[in-house]
């Protein structure tokens, strides 16, 4: 239910034999509260759950917009939105004696989606609400269509698909690529979502000068370095000995060794930049 | 696949028999075609009966081949395997009927059946002269391995029975 300043004061006055949850929010475009819009979707789901309460309702949900209840906001010294207030009953079996008159949850500090909100309501008032999310027909339709097209596709190209799957080179590239990717910090990027690169005064910083953190571009460069070194080593093992001309082979060997040493020295140099006290260096 | 054949064949015998009924003119080509058709009908009829009884045929072929080709020692092991499998099934049915308390005893007994089956099957595989992969393993060594793994296995079973 939508509240105004006056109804708010009325509902929160004592005595109460019901629990009241008030959402303090604002939809004023001047304030540009993105979180209020996001939270509003969850609020609508929870409000429907409120409406489905069996028997006599013991908990109520109200929403107070900043425009309607400015004095309430200032009286309670609420500076950030969205905000959830909980007024427990003052009489009846679940009355709260002593302590504050109401609890508050600041949604800028703590995440609250529909499920967590219902969980909170259950924990403080003992009333269990169930959220029923409407079935997203478009998503269902898309999935079914994708599945059918996938089945048709597989039936059509079954034999050639088999050939592709059995190709050893494909698996080699896939496995080695994934391996090098993981070992160059890809999961760290996935979990911590760092910036692509840093920048100070317009100068791009490629390597973050800390031991436990990295930029995305940094992990890519290191991955490429590892891959290049491995390729050089594999080349020295598999390709170079098959060169028939002795002179060509000698040049190939020297180039391979030089490449390997350069790449490896550079990797060590990069590591020395990240970890200040590292004492070893190879060539630069 | 056998079912598909059976579904298709009922139509043809009727049509071929119809042709048979039509007055066979003494002209030889007609007789020849009639004869060809009748033989086709008979082969098709034979194939339907084959399809219907091919399952039984397959199994009987399997059994006869098995009887002929497996040496006596392997048959003994196979009989033992069947026996062990029966004990496992009996235990499982009992648990479904009588509940799982105490669970560790059930698990010990059931896994004992499964394990004995597996270990004996290993022995059979290793002793089977047709298996080319085990040329380096003499039957005595295979049996020794079997004993070793069985002893370890039963030690755990006894500990787990509670």
């Amino acid at each position, binding site marked *: 239910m939508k509240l105004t300043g006056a109804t708010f004061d009325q509902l929160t006055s004592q005595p109460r034999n019901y629990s009241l949850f008030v959402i303090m929010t604002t939809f004023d475009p001047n304030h540009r509260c993105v979180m209020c819009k996001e939270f509003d979707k969850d609020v609508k789901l929870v409000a429907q759950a409120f409406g489905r309460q069996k028997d006599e309702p013991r908990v109520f949900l109200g929403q107070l917009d900043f425009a309607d209840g400015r004095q309430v906001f200032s009286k309670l010294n609420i500076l950030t939105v969205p905000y959830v207030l909980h007024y427990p009953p003052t009489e009846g079996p679940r009355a709260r004696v002593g302590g504050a008159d109401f609890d508050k949850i600041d949604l800028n500090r703590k995440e609250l989606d529909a499920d967590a909100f219902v969980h909170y309501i259950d924990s403080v008032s003992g009333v269990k609400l169930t959220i029923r999310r409407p079935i997203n027909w478009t998503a269902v339709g898309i999935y079914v269509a994708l599945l059918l097209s996938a089945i048709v596709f597989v039936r059509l190209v079954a034999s050639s698909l088999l050939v592709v799957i059995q190709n050893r080179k494909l698996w080699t590239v896939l496995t080695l690529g994934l391996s090098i990717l993981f070992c160059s910090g890809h999961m760290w990027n996935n979990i*911590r979502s760092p910036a692509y690169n840093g920048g100070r005064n317009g100068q791009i910083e490629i390597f973050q000068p800390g031991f436990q953190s990295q930029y995305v571009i940094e992990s890519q460069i290191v991955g490429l370095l590892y891959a290049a070194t491995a390729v050089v080593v594999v080349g020295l093992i598999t390709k170079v000995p098959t060169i028939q001309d002795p002179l060509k082979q000698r040049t190939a060997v020297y180039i391979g060794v030089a490449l390997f040493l350069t790449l490896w020295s550079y990797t060590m140099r990069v590591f020395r930049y990240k970890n200040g006290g590292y004492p070893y260096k190879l060539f630069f | 696949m056998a079912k598909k054949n059976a579904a298709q064949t009922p139509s043809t015998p009727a049509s071929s028999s119809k042709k048979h009924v039509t007055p066979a003119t003494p002209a030889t080509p007609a007789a020849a075609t009639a004869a060809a058709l009748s033989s086709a009908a008979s082969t098709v009829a034979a194939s339907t009966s084959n399809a219907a009884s091919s399952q039984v045929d397959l199994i009987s072929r399997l059994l006869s081949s098995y009887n002929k080709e497996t040496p006596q020692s392997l048959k003994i092991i196979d009989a033992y395997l069947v026996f062990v499998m029966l004990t496992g099934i009996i235990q499982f049915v009992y648990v479904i009927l009588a509940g799982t308390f105490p669970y560790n005893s059930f698990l010990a007994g059931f896994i004992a059946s499964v*394990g004995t089956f597996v270990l004996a099957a290993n022995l059979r595989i290793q002793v089977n002269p047709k298996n080319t992969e085990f040329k380096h393993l003499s039957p005595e060594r295979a049996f020794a391995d079997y004993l070793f793994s069985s002893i370890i296995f039963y030690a755990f079973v006894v500990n787990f029975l509670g």
Partner: protein
Amino acid sequence: MLGLNSSSETVWLRVTILSLVAILAFASRLFSVLRFESVIHEFDPWFNYRTTVELVENGFYDFVNWFDELSWYPLGRVVGGTVYPGIMVTAGLIHKFLTTLNFPIHIREVCVFLAPLFSGFTAIAAYLLTAEMKDPAAGLLAAAFIGIAPGYISRSVAGSYDNEGIAIFLLVFTFYLWIKALKLGSAFYGALTALFYFWMVSAWGGYVFIINLIPLHAFALILMGRFSTRLYVAYSTFYVIGTLSSMQIPFVGFQPTKTNDHMAALGIFGLLQIIAFVEMIRTHLSSNQFRSLLTGLVIGFFIIGFGGLVGLTYGGYIAPWTGRFYSLWDTGYAKKYIPIIASVSEHQPTAWPSFFFDLQLLMPLFPAGVYLCFKELRDEHVFVILYAITASYFAGVMVRLMLTLTPIVCVAAALAVSRLLDIYLANAGPAPVTAAPATEKDVKSIKEDKKKEKKKEGRFGIWSFDSKLSVVLPIGLVLTVFAWHCTWVTSNAYSSPSIVLASRGRDGSQVIIDDFREAYYWLRQNTPEKAKIMAWWDYGYQITGMSNRTVLVDNNTWNNTHIATVGKAMACSEDVAYEVMRKLDVDYVLVIFGGAIGYSGDDINKFLWMIRIGEGVYPNDISERNFFTDRGEYRIDDQATKTMRDSLLYKMSYYRFNDLFGGKTGYDSVRGSHVSTKPIKLHTIEEAYSTENYIVRLYQVKKPDNIGRSLSAASTFGKKRKRRSRKPASGKAKKGRG
């Protein structure tokens, strides 16, 4: 050389080199013993040590049925059912063996040196494993690599008496036995694999990795069409004996039949049975019709089995992937639902410098080795590839799992280096590539013969001596730098016992900081035996281990509410905390404070986690926002919020801190700011002991007042009160105003 023929010469050379590698592995883990003394490190090993002492003193049955009353007061802890007994039993057996031989050795020495001893064994196990992959020369390289690789040293230094110390040896050895069983199709090796797997299950929770990797390997072989009776024999023997034996451990119990972690093994077992049966029938009949029908049967079984598994999981008969392992797949899961797991520093994801730090040269050689496996692709090489890709993923997700990646990186890198050296150290010139067999050539057309004659016959090898040299020397150089790197890392990063610290004094001499043990021994000698100590869970094991007193919470972290209660006591004001402490019978409180000396692992730095965990259970009493200033800063000086300055932890940390600075405002060197200028007054607790460098501070909780006054009133009795605006004070105190 010694008058032996060349083959026995090679064997002797190998034995000598391998022994030297094992001794090297043992020796390079002894830094902390040489620098400080033989003492158990860190936190978890203290608990393991305590249980081992219990085992040695009271015997095996008492150990298995032990109920620990000293921890998690008032709940206690059933140790027998919640611990992996492998490492304790191993240490106990070694101790017993040595005492029977009349070597009087203290159990502590056995515990301290157990991990280095087993790391020598791991080197031997890695040698055996790599020898199966390629040849003994590669094996020696692998043994050397794993002997010094910092990724493994980090958890197996002398003094780090933790599960991983023996678990990695068991992991590598189990894998070696599995490969051997697979290659020979031998039930003997399969049974041995199961035995060592049983030992591994008793030692570490990471056994789930084994029981999922081996079925994955079997499955990959089946998919590649490489099913063979060898695979059947090896896997079935391993699975049956291994599963039954793993259920003997009380901590594991019936999990192999009831949780999703183990279902993959069961599924592959069933699949193997069906396929073997099908193959056996096929030898009697050879009709294509039958074959396609049976392929359909196999696929049908697979789908039914999988569907049944999903159904049983939803029905609750089989538990889904549990928290710890689930958080490896869904990486955001732990932060939301299990914050304690998310807060452990070892569970953070791995950035690339950590990979480089732990593996250096082995890191780029690792893909090269895996590529060589792809070229040969025997059954065992498939195993290396699978192990490599899964281990890299897990190591990327959690720092602690770098440990499982290290063995395979060592093996693969050894394969690459060994192959390289094979080619470039070969004495002979290039050898001709073996041509196709003559029979096939005869069948081919004349045109092809002509084409072949035009090309020079293919040769494989290196022509000139200087190119061989130019590869061998740089490889030697790079390997040497690798060895230096490993030694440097071991010496600097992984050898600190963390219970004893060392720093440089002003004149450069080494200063040993032994505050922790000082405080724990003070507790041991000066407090009554039944005293209860409240401290944050990090220190629980150390307190019970060294001072032998009861604690409220310890590193096992199995009860989140209890930990949150302690967090509440730390974060709330003195009076609220006093209520909590009285309810829990707390006698002494212990805080770690690093501001005086610059030790940054102290409780004020961990305070935010205490608040968060406490807020999770007591949202009405604690609110994280109240500890931050209006501008969102976390401060400890005069501008700290009132909640911060009133909290018990703040007061305990900075009580009489200003006195250290002779009356001026104290300066906290860890946070880098001055502290509050107002002197702190405590009325519910009093200072009992502070260590030499003020790192550990002990406070005694006061008993309730004899006359029934509130403690704050009792403490202000007889003291002059500053004139303040009249507030309705608690009545009885007025009497004493002077």
